[in-house]
């Protein structure tokens, strides 16, 4: 006899609004269903009603934790439509901010992961140390969360020599934080026993489900847009793409941990090699009629922007494919057969970002309207 455990839309383990129904036998997960759509905001439609310049701000508000990712991708795609390229110095600044945000996102993720495992001390420690990353962002961009650094054809703020020294000092601190994080992961045996061989996603499944980012790299799929299709200044910096073969939660943890180290290295290189020159363009051409694709490696995986232009100052169509859309589908595969106690960490291990997901699944929600009537669910819960 199995019973249904509802998780979400409001649940302490899920900081974001989504609904899971897990069928469990005892503590073992034997089936499940998930439903998104609580955070639909109609951003793609809204983007076609605003000018390209206003859309930068809209793109930034798709997701709080990866706003530079979205604005960089949007700007680079529109720059392709305009047939221009941002100045070199702007590209380097984009890279620096991009990687700083990756640090912020990954450290936040480590904290959440520790919290899901009940290791609140590490969670508090990491979130406290994350403040150094926030300070870097605040000093470079003038803001802490929605950074607003990108603009069409460049960036809006320049790096001064004092700022570079400040960032270098903070990077030294962050290196120690990363080292300590590695110590926590590698030396805590209880922690390891909770994440090893849990939530396994095999390489075949990973390829079949088209997962991206750290989720894919944790399953041995060697993809990274930063290396495969360089944007910003990534073609000019050296970094390793870390790939783990095991496919369990631990390997996804290790991939993200290695990315922390790499991010610090990338920022260091970018700061060292940053060229002199302008950071933006004085005049911008109109986007030509046509369409363009842009992709970047967001913290959760490949982010894709498709923009169709009709020659006016507004895009005709903006399509955003966020990494969580594809990664979320792999969740049930990972959870089947696992214990209920492991569900939160498996869920956290792909670092799902639901506010960006829900915008894209609107069509599904509309088609399956009858399925989402709460009454039918209610009756199901009563009978079970």
């Amino acid at each position, binding site marked *: 006899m199995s*019973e*249904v*455990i*509802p998780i979400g839309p409001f*649940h*302490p*383990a899920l900081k974001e609004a989504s609904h899971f129904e897990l069928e*469990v036998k*005892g*503590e073992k997960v034997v089936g499940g269903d998930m439903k998104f759509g609580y955070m639909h905001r109609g951003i793609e439609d809204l983007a076609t009603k605003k000018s390209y310049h206003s859309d930068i701000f809209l793109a930034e508000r798709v997701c709080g934790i990866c706003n530079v990712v979205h604005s960089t991708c949007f700007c680079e795609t529109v720059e392709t439509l305009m047939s221009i390229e941002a100045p070199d110095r702007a590209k380097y600044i984009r890279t620096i901010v991009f990687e700083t945000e990756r640090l912020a996102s990954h450290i936040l993720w480590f904290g959440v992961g*520790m*919290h*899901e*495992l*009940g*290791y*609140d*001390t*590490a969670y*508090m*420690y990491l979130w*406290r140390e994350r403040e150094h990353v926030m300070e870097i962002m605040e000093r470079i961009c003038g803001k802490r969360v929605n950074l607003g650094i990108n603009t069409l054809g460049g960036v809006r703020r320049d790096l001064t020599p004092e700022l570079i020294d400040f960032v270098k000092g903070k990077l030294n601190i962050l290196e120690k934080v990363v080292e300590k994080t590695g110590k926590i992961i590698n030396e*805590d045996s*209880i*922690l390891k*026993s*909770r994440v090893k061989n849990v939530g396994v996603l095999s390489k075949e499944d990973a390829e079949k489900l088209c997962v991206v980012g750290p989720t894919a790299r944790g399953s041995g799929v060697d993809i990274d847009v930063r290396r495969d299709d360089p944007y910003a200044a990534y073609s000019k910096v050296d970094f390793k793409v870390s790939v783990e073969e095991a496919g369990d939660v631990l390997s996804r943890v290790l991939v993200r941990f290695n990315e922390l180290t790499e991010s610090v290295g990338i920022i260091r290189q970018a700061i060292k090699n940053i060229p002199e020159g302008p950071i933006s363009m004085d005049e911008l051409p109109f986007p030509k009629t046509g369409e363009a694709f842009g992709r970047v490696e967001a913290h959760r995986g490949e982010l894709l922007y498709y923009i169709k232009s009709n020659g006016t100052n507004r895009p005709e169509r903006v399509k955003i494919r966020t990494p969580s859309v594809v990664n979320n589908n792999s969740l049930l595969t990972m959870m089947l057969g696992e*214990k*209920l*106690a*492991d*569900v*939160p960490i498996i869920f956290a291990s792909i670092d799902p970002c639901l506010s960006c997901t829900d915008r894209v699944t609107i069509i599904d929600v509309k088609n399956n309207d009858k399925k989402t009537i709460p009454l039918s669910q209610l009756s199901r819960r009563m009978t079970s």
Partner: protein
Amino acid sequence: MIDLLDILIKLLVYPGLLFSVIVGGLFYWFYRKFRARSQGRIGPPWYQYFADLIKLFSKESNITQKSIRYLSALAPIVSICSLVLIVAILPIGSGSLMSFKGDLIIALYLLTLPGFAIGIAGLASRSPYGIIGSRREARIAASYGIPFALSALTVAFYTQSLTISSIVEYQIKNGIFFLRYPLATIAFLLCLLPIMGRRPFDAPDADTEIIGGPLTEYSGTPLGLFELANGLKWFVAPVFTVFLLFGGGANVIELLLKCLGLVIFVSIIDIIYTRYRTDQSFKFFLKWALPLALIDLVRSLIWP
């Protein structure tokens, strides 16, 4: 009549309910503050636990329609009664209120009762989170039960007595059992963690998995009673350990200081470890706590 009044005062005020709740609440606050400070947080003020109690008792209590009402109400009362009875058995201050042959066995049983009460509470609420929490509570109770009893019996075998007051007297004369039976003490302290519901054995109320666990559907007065029982536990569990293995205290201050030491021990473990799954804690107790308890039990039998 005066005898009855005396007993009632001892049972309800000192060293009974009121005293235990106040001391337990302060220990609980100490744990929270200590934990918060070592995590870089500020932590609650000292009266937080009592403010919570007042708030919960003054609030409306909703019991869900699906739940078994009388069990939901009875569970916290069972929990409180069993803990107060242990306080009555223990010789706190001027002698014990009710000491009899075999009270060690009774006290051991009573100390595991709050766990069962929480299990019953979860089942009675009939919420999926509650049921899963109860199942976990039961599984953990089954795993720590044997090493817990064995390590306590080591002391009983050695002194040839099942009366707590005689065990305490023996320790005052001949030195504490912690030095004689360190392995049994470690096993006993490990079992103290799940009894107090602390990491790494706090899976029954893992908030990120099953929200409040067995107490998810509780509110108002019943929840307040459970909170009261929780505070009592923070006093009863350490004080019982101190009497059994650390020789009690010549006066109340010494006793409470020894208890504080145990609270610090529990807090440190809670701070530095993450949560075990229930199957992992089961294995842990069978693999580590049970052998430790067994070794000292055999030692107490062979070399009395």
